[in-house]
Structures are given as C-alpha cells and as structure tokens.
C-alpha cells in the first residue's frame, strides 16, 4: 500500500506538469490581447509599456518558467513563512503570482474567497450526503416499492434540472412570491450572536437547497445500485440463514460493504467543493471561488485564471489518488502491490 502510494504520487508529478503546461499554453498562446479592453485612445507606445509591465514582453518559455517558479517555489515558501512566522531568504523581493486586475497576489485572493465557498458548497455536501444515504438504502431494500419509484423519479429530476433553472425557480417561489429567504447571499455578513447566526442560516438555505438536490440525486443512485449489488450476494443469505436479525444483516453487513464505492465517489467529489459551484455562486451572488474565476475570465486576468484552474487540476489529481487509496484500505480484496 505504501509503495503503491509513493508510486502514484511520483506518477502524479509528470501529469501535473503536463496539465500546467496545457493550461498555461492554452491561455497564453491563444489569440486575444489583454490590453484590448483598455480605451482605444491610449497611444501605441503606452500600450506597449503596459504590456511589458504585465510581463508580456518576454518569450513564452521564460514566462512559463517564471510562473512555475512563482507557483511552486515562491508561494509555498510564503505560506511556510506565514505559518511559522519565520523569514526564509529575501522574502521582501520575492515575486508572487500577481493578479492583473487587482495587483494583489492571487493566493491571497483565493484565501479571501475560500470561506464563502466552503460554507455554502460544503454545507450542501453535508446535507446531500445526509439525505442520500438513508434514501438509497431504503430504495434498494424495498426495490420497486412506491418509495423507490418516487425516489428514482426525484433523482431523475435532480439530474435533469440544471442548477441555473432550479436556482431561478426557488428564487421565484421562495423569495419573490413567498418572501421567506433573501435571493442574494450577503457575503459581508458576520456571525456574532444567535440572531446573526439565524440570518446566516436563512440566507444559506436557498443555495444549499439547489446544490444539495444535485448531490443527492447522484449519491442516491450510487448508494441504491451499490446496495442492490450486495443484497443479492451469498453472504447475505448466509447471514440470514444463521438467524441474524434483518436489521443486523442490512445495517451491519450489507451497508458496510455497500459504503465502499460510495465513499470513493464522495472523495472524488471533494475537488468540486473547493472549485465552488460556479453557476450556483453566480445565481445567488455568493462571492466565492467560482465568482472569482468568472470575474477573472471576464476581466481577462490571465495569471488569476491560470493559477485557479491549475489549483483545481491539482485537487482533482490529488483526490483521485485519495479515492484509490481509500478503496484499497476499505476493501481488503483490492491488492495494488
């Protein structure tokens, strides 16, 4: 297991390097000029100066190398310094990945936006998992019952209604017609006491509801399929034959075995927690990571978009690895070595 982990980690390095190159090259070599958004009455020489100030004067490979150094060396050093309060080398003049539109370090922007995304999307995952697991278990245990049929129909709806429609729909119903919840998420709201906590819950309900519907739909299907696979196995018949109670058979034996693939699916979904649900954040004006990315794309802020996209890729690769390792730990039949 340990050797397998090391091997996979080593294998992840070239994958990530290739991905970083693809992302950098795609954004950098694409036609389009970052100064094209500026007013046209700027003289050509000033425009050239602006391009050079943004670092565009250098050839492609120099910029790629610089970005790699800033991302893989300078930023981690900076994080270490902040954590341990020490100074490593010439930290004043160390170049960081700077956003073009705000001129502040990209990593600082991400850290600033992270809590909003984690609150909303993370809570949606918690709610989704809490609903999906019991529903999946009951659906599978009572296959083709009314409960199962209704559950399947609702998961189909969750699959089919895109978030940009369900989000708008709940806004029409709950905020325009009923006036129960606000349609805009107030990012500046700080939780200090019980009342402000209630307000936070109140404004979180709609976005969490929209996201949780989708997560529940996917997880319920997985849970149901996995339970159905296991319920027909021989060991279940054995357990029943030796006189175990139905509860023990289902909840101890079947559920534990069915959870193995479901847990890996949950692990695979973690990157999208950090990635933020781009569309849902856009609908409810949650100022999270997704909104940061959209803002960067609209402003043509290449360093921000490059760094953010690459961080998403790192998370995807990392959690693929975590899912595989979890699978190996939880299921003794899987042997990687």
């Amino acid at each position, binding site marked *: 297991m340990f050797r397998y982990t090391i091997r996979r980690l080593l294998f992840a390095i070239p994958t990530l390097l290739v991905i970083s190159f*693809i992302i950098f090259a795609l954004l950098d070599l694409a*036609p*389009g000029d970052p100064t094209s958004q500026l007013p046209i009455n700027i003289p050509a020489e000033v425009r050239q100066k602006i391009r050079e100030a943004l670092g565009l004067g250098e050839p492609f490979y120099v910029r790629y190398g610089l970005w790699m150094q800033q991302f893989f060396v300078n930023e981690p050093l900076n994080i270490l310094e902040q954590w341990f309060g020490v100074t490593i080398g010439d930290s004043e003049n160390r170049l960081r990945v700077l956003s073009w539109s705000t001129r502040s370090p990209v990593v600082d922007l991400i850290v600033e936006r992270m809590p909003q995304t984690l609150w909303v999307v993370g809570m949606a995952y918690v709610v989704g998992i809490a609903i999906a697991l019991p529903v999946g278990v009951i659906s599978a245990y009572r296959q083709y019952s009314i409960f199962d049929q209704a559950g399947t129909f609702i998961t189909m709806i969750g699959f*089919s209604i*895109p978030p940009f*429609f369900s989000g*708008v729909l709940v806004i*029409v119903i709950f905020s325009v017609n009923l006036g129960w919840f606000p349609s805009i998420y107030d990012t500046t709201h700080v939780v200090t006491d019980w009342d402000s906590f209630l307000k936070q819950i109140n404004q979180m309900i709609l976005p969490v509801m929209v996201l949780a519907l989708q997560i529940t739909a996917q997880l319920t299907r997985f849970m149901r399929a996995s339970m159905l696979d296991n319920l027909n196995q021989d060991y279940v018949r054995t357990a029943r034959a030796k006189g175990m109670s139905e509860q023990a058979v289902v909840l101890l034996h079947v559920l534990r075995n069915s959870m193995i693939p479901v847990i890996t699916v949950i692990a695979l979904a973690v990157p999208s927690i950090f990635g933020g649900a781009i569309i849902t954040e856009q609908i409810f004006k949650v100022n999270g990571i997704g909104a940061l990315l959209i803002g960067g794309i609209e402003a043509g802020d290449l360093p921000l978009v490059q760094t*953010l996209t690459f961080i998403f*890729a790192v998370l995807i690769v990392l959690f693929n690895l975590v899912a595989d390792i979890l699978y190996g730990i939880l299921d003794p039949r899987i042997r990687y070595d």
Partner: protein
Amino acid sequence: MTEQVTARAVAGGEAAEMGAHRSLWRDVWLQYRTHTGAVVGTFVFLFIVLGVIIGPFFHTTDPTYIDYRAKNTLHMFSCFYFSVPEAVENAGAWTTWSCFTDPAGFAELTAKRVKVSWTHPLGTDNYGRDTLAQLMAGGRVSLAVGVTAMALSIVLGALIGVLSGFFRWLDGPLMRLTDLFLALPILPLLLVMIMLFRETLRAAFGPEEGIFILVVSAIGITSWMQTARIVRGDVLSIKEREFVLAARSIGTRQHRIIGRHIFPNVLSPVMVSATLGLASAIITESALSFLGLGFPSDFPTWGRLLIDGRDFMDITPSRVIWPGLAISLTVLSVNYMGDGLRDALDPRIRGR
C-alpha cells in the same frame, strides 16, 4: 461474460420455441417498449423536436421582430390567475372566459393588469419580442448544438476507445491522454476556451457560425473520455473472442475486423452514452449561455433566454419558466430514453 453468453443462448432458445424469428433489434425494441419512463420520454422528446422544427411554420411571428407596444405581455394561462369578481370592479358580464375570447377588451377592463393577446400566446419580453417564437428558434439552436457536440464526442470517444483497445502499442499513450483529460477542470477550461477564441472565430466565420463551431467543438473535445473508457474495455474483451480469431485466421485485414466484427458489438454502450451525452451537451451549452459566454442575445438559445429573463423575474416570471422547462423536459426525457435503452440493450435483463 459467460453469464451474458448463456443469457443470450437462453433468449435464443425461447425464440425458437415460439417459432418466430426475432432479430436482435426487434428484441431490443420489445424490451424498450416495456419501460414506461422510456416510452413517455420518447414521446415528450419527439414532441419537443417536432414542435421546434415544424412549429415556426404555424406560428409565423419573427422571433427578432420588436413589437414595442405589446411589450411585457403575459402568457395566456395567466387568465386563470385573475378571478374576475375580485380583480375587477363593475365586472358586469365579464367572466374569466372572456379573457380568452376578447383579450384586448379584458386588458382594457382590468386597467392593463392582465395584458394578454392571442398574437403572443406565451407573452413577450421587455422589447415586445414574441416568447413562443423565441423559444422555438432557441430550441433549434440548442438541439442542434447538443446533437452536433454529442456526435463529435461520440466519434472521438469511440475512435480512441477502439484504437486503444485493439492496438496494444497505442493503449498506453491513449489511456494516459484520457486520464489527463479527466484530470482537467472542465467547466473553467470551457469558459476560458470560449473567452479566448470567441473573437477570432467570429471574425473568421461570422458571429453566429463562429460561436456555433466554437461551442460545439469545445463541448465535444472535453466530453469524450467516458465513452472512450467504456469502448476500450469492451473491445479488450471482444477481441479475444472466437469469432475474431476465426476472422483473423481466414486472413481478414485489421480494418475489416474492426469495422465488421468489433465495432458492431460495441454499438450498444456507444448508443447509451450517446443519449446521456446529448443530455449533458444541452445542459453544458445552456450553462455557457447562462454565464454569458455562449451565443449572443439576438441569436437566442434556451440558456440565453433564461438569463435574459432573469432580470425581469418579478414582472414576467414566465420568461424564466418556459425556457427552463424546455431544457429540463428535454434533458429529463433524454435521460429516461437512455435508461430504457440501457435496460433494453442489456441481455441479462432482456427477455425477463
């Protein structure tokens, strides 16, 4: 695999007992018909497709024609919301029914609170463009994008899957490529691609065709990986079967083996992933339009109509509801069709 073979043999035995010859596709069709969701889904999908294609011949209003005096007209169903005695003083002989028979007079009577008209059965937007005509025009674009992008991704996926399953020396590189694509954050990259290449393609192919080519190829290039993996797995097992060995032993060339013997046998997973791919392509296109990176406003798709209607949600909520309903119904029906097709093509379920 042995299980599938026996199941097929059993099904064949049953057919022989009945005495009638049944082809594979007839079996599939018979099984498909028993799946209620799939049948309903097929009807709904056909209804939407026919409505979008034939509809404009019956409802001939130009989707881009601006009838400013009719702006913010409500849809005809809103007649039901207003019960006459409460909403209108001096109602006299007017009833809810007269809203349908004389919409203009009814609008006059209610002081324009119920502004409806048979010229615009589903209402108009804030410039007076007809919603029904826009929906049909938008549906043509959305469905065309969905079908083309799905076809592109299926062709790519099947090609890469067959190549890497059949040729061992291609397997490693192509599967690494697939893993690489799976590790890319898709939605951000789609957005970035569209932002970067929009202007160039617009200049080259014109505003509408340029965006169409861009959106279709962006969705196709980023969604072939699942199909490739499934096809590869199937090809790996099929190429070890006896009939392939037999074909090889009589000297069949490799491209004939792939075309005649291997590809027809992986057709069923390809068909299932085609239906699911169609659903996700429609959703992705609408999401791109919704984020403002799809088609321009004067060339509407369902996603674009939805985002344009969002700002007028409290005046005319129906402008959001109709396109959203169209997207959701299409995707729901396609998903059900895919479900039914998967069951029908699975020999372990078929015939039970």
